[in-house]
């Protein structure tokens, strides 16, 4: 594995992938809150996104200004090829660990 991917980073990447066309600051935060029960501040979220962008896992563009945003545009995010590879690698590593694990891991 080339780049280390933090747990939150992985969640954010996956959430952005799941949200598809509608992935921007608020929607990502709300999704993380409802789906993953993770309540993170908007500052922490933007920081994580910035780190992911620096690693080349995300790309972004502006658009979609609405009334409740005071007419300010949103910054939409999309997962890049490198990002997809990184989450895939993370997943395969976990899968490998699951299959290798000697203890019977099952959830009742």
């Amino acid at each position, binding site marked *: 594995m080339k780049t280390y991917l933090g747990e939150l980073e992985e969640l954010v990447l996956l959430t952005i992938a799941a949200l598809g066309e509608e992935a921007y600051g*608020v929607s990502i935060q*709300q999704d993380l809150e409802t789906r993953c029960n993770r309540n993170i*501040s*908007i*500052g922490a979220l*933007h920081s994580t996104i*910035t780190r992911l962008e620096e690693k080349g896992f995300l790309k972004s563009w502006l658009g979609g200004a609405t009334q409740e945003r*005071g007419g300010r*545009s*949103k910054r939409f995010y999309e997962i890049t090829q490198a990002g997809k590879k990184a989450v895939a690698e993370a997943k395969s590593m976990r899968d490998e660990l699951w299959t290798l694990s000697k203890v019977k891991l099952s959830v009742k």
Partner: protein
Amino acid sequence: MTQPPKLARKILEWFAAAAFVEDMLGDLDELYFIHLKTKSTAVAKLLYWRGAMSLLFSYALKKRKAKASLGLYSSSISMGLLRNYFKVAVRSLYQHKYFTILNAFGLAVGMSISLLLLSLISYVQTYDDFHTNRESIYTIISERTEGVEQLAWALAPHVLADKLSENSNVKAVVRINSYFREEVKLPQGLIPLRGYYVEPNFLDVFTYQVTQGNARATLSQPNHIVITESAALKIFNTTHVLGKTLELNTGGLVVVGAVMKDHPINSHFDFELLASFASLPQPQASISDQWTYFDFQYLYVLLEQTASVSDFQSYLDKISDDTYAKLPVKVAFQAQHLNDIALGPDLRMAIGPKWEASGMIVFAVIAAMILLPACFNYTNISIARALKRAKEIGLRKTLGGVKFQVFFQFITETVVVTFIAFIGALVLFYFMRTEFQKMLVASNALDLSLTVRMACYFLLFALGTGLVAGIFPALYFGGLNPIQALKNKVHKGSSAMRVRKVLTVFQFILSFGFILSLVVFNRQYQYSLNFNFGFAKENIVNVALQGTAPHLVKNEFSKLAPVQSVAMSSQVMGLGYYNTWIKDSENDSTEVAHMYVDDNYIPLFGLTLIAGTNFTAEAGLVEKFIIVNEAFVNEYKIATPVEAIGKTYNVEGSELQVIGVVKNFHFAPLRYPIKKFFFRNNPAKFTYAHLKVSTADAFTMFTDFETHWNNLNPEQKVAASFFEDDLNDGYNHYVVLLKIIGFLGLLALTISVLGLLGMVVYSAETKVKEISIRKVFGASVLNLNYMLSKEYLKLIVWAVGISAPVTAYLIYLVLPHLQYYSTTVSLWDVVISTAILLGLAMLTVWSQTNKVAMANPADTLRSE
């Protein structure tokens, strides 16, 4: 519907500055309205604040800000920009060569003194760095309180050593006694040697290289020494001296048991040999168990590496509390680290070379007084030339340069000038180094050659100087309004003008101070030389007896034709004095100065007896009489000198009778007031012969002295000199002082004059057209000169007005400390100093204004 909190948004926007945060603010707003649906307004607002704050300190915003600053209107300094600044600086400096040279020369002169200080500090910091145990070595110093007198000494009583060894943190205690006063008897005469009495563990704690013999064994035997190689060469002309014996002046013999390499000169010890502690002479050995008298005794401890100094210090405090509780003298001990000895607080009786912190501070103040005016000059000239640079700055700012960048540009320029000056200062430093070293007391323990540490200090210093000199102009230029700058509307009536004037006045205050001090101290020196001491000093030759019997010397020298009479005494008058204690029948004993003389002394030195008689030629074996001075009579409250005759005083156990009273004369140097004094008559104490001579050929006379002296004492060289010269030599410190003040004054004056020159050149340059027009309308050269120079004249008058009373007062305070009988500052001194300063300054000003005033107006006006 309520709106999100405005203030939080404003703060975030302000903090973000150029960075793009629209999407973040949008997110905050959106979240706010989502929260409003489920929560109260207050909670939603609170959450908005929290979100804004989390963004404010977020990594995301930091990154966006960094990115924004690299945009089109960048406010940071990139490498390319730095190169551009450097290039512009070099071009601008090259274009204004005259000012660059003025500035660089002034700064070089200003920095040179500071370089001396830095080189000194950098060397002194290396003191004692050759001891491998240096981190754990401490010396014990003592603060002694007796009555109201409180003094700090480098000494500590040796009896303390046993108590120190009891402490488990102490690995070793080294006792050193510095009472080594021996001279070696050699065929060519007596050679004094510097040495310490030490114990064998001295060599365990301190790191020295023993080359031959067993040094530890040597130091445990009486009358054995360890000698350094240079001392061995000095005495035996060889370093293979193991087992040889030295004959000492006191009659004893000592055996060389080991030879060691000379210690490095950066050491707070200074010795040529180490003698065993067992060889310590009796009076010193017998006082080593005393807590109150411990001259020449030093203690060093080697602590365990894990030991805490504060614990050790409290241990010392406890000892001193316990020991001195019942004694009249209180002594507080303190552990001083080895690294702090050489450059530490002022202590009495330091064991070797020492650089006192107070002296360093005085030196630093002087260095700053020379350096700062040079920096001011730079500041002054730079601001004065603002007009020329204003367009450039205006353009830079219009094209998007921000304050910080302009600031940085000018700092770069100053640093470039400073480094040019620094090279000049280095050259000056190389020339001044030797002369400077000669003036220092501990100069043989100093090596001012360039080291890496020194070079680092120098570079940092040059950079620092650049910043100090450049900060003000850089701030000024950075704050220029581009519109005004481009319209050429800066500079007039600005506060910079006032600052320039204040700086110039300050410089001339300093220069005037130096000139006035020079004039007054020179007068003080002349005053001391021409002082009427109350005794004759002409045509008297002093001959040191050097152990030869007085009557032999008298007989031998009386034979010579130029010698008219011979007197004997115990010392040379006017150079110093000795005290003894005397007691009369009623009062307690008091301290009185005294001197042993024979019957010829009083007439030979032209002293006047105002009552009683002189000593007689037949001095008995027992001392009987004394002759006192007027001050003695007054202080003992005797009404008239005649009444003093016949009174007896107990002097050192015997009753002596007053047989005469002499008129007051200066038996002591002029630093001391005339006090109680008496002459006594005891041939055994004579150490000097005084010859009254009359000759035109001093050279032949001294050669005759030499041949006759060799008849008496061929082992030693004759030591004869004119009394007047001896006396004048006693005031030689004034010559040194005058040299120093003169040199510093020259530097200060050079810097001020350079500054003035820069200002005048600039202002004459800008007024060329005005002057030409005035000339066309009929102004005379004199008129024009006056017009151009009156501004500077005013500044100098201001400077003299401020400096004269301040300097005069300071000198007035200092003079009596240097000398009890001293001159004072007179109006004439001030007038002469003012004339010198004004003369020099006006010469500088007129050299420039005259050139402009003399120019042909047709030449200057034609071009437009």
